[in-house]
């Protein structure tokens, strides 16, 4: 399914980033970083909206030959970025949406955890497990 999932804070530093396979990690870090610009562009282009300006899901940010990048911004300006293998054409838009929904729900649970300080990296095992369940099946 997904090959890389990242949660970026509103100040644009990563709260959580994970990718498989592990050797490609640097490349995915770089991809997520460049996709942040596209996210900002989409969020600020509200007036001339091609995207429904009231929606949280941003859709396909940009495709490359190997993979596609999807984005989602919450009301608290936390961004979720997902990199998906292009060869996996079976993934439809609503599946991506539902994956982002699950991510958002887990993120909300992490926020409400008293042992979590907003702004720290996410260490929650429950969040890890949920992300693992979305990333398994690639290799």
């Amino acid at each position, binding site marked *: 399914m997904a090959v890389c999932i990242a949660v970026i804070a*509103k100040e644009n530093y990563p709260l959580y980033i994970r990718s498989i396979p592990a050797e490609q990690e640097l490349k995915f870090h770089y991809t997520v970083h460049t996709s942040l610009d596209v996210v900002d562009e989409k969020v600020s282009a*509200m007036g001339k909206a091609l995207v429904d*300006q*009231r*929606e*949280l899901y941003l859709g396909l940010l940009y495709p490359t030959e190997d993979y596609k990048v999807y984005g989602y*911004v*919450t*009301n*608290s*300006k936390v961004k979720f970025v997902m990199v998906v293998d292009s060869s996996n054409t079976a993934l439809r838009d609503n599946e991506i949406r539902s994956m982002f929904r699950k991510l*958002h*729900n887990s*993120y*909300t649970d992490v*926020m*409400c955890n008293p042992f979590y300080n*907003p702004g720290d990296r996410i260490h929650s095992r429950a969040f890890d497990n949920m992300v693992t369940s979305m990333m398994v099946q690639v290799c």
Partner: protein
Amino acid sequence: MADEALFLLLHNEMVTGVYKSADQGEVENGRCITKLENMGFRVGQGLIERFTKDTARFKDELDIMKFICKDFWTTIFKKQIDNLRTNHQGIYVLQDNKFRLLTQMSAGKQYLDHAPKYLAFTCGLIRGGLSNLGIKSIVTAEVSAMPACKFQVMIQKI
């Protein structure tokens, strides 16, 4: 019905608890009020994350303040803010004529000097919620006659 009373009673105990566990010096310095406000801040951050999970994106600052006055207040206190005023330059005054946390206390001037203790948590709640939505602010509260109170929000432009 029951959950409303639970929050009210818990809040009252919390205020008493913080004051009891503070040293003599701290009570006079107002550190307890800061402690309560910080508690409210963290709670506000988590609450906003939960409440805005399914709502649409906010257009501007006024939209966010309206959300706080209507949905946020309704979910916590089961009623809306009665009056929202702004000078369009970053100052908002939220007026609640029958603030839930004060109705049990009195209906006039009695216990007026104790009122700020019970408003500190809610000030923090508002500040935490706004900060998670990307707005830095200072929130203060004043009471002239219970149970009506006013929350003043000053948006800080960075």
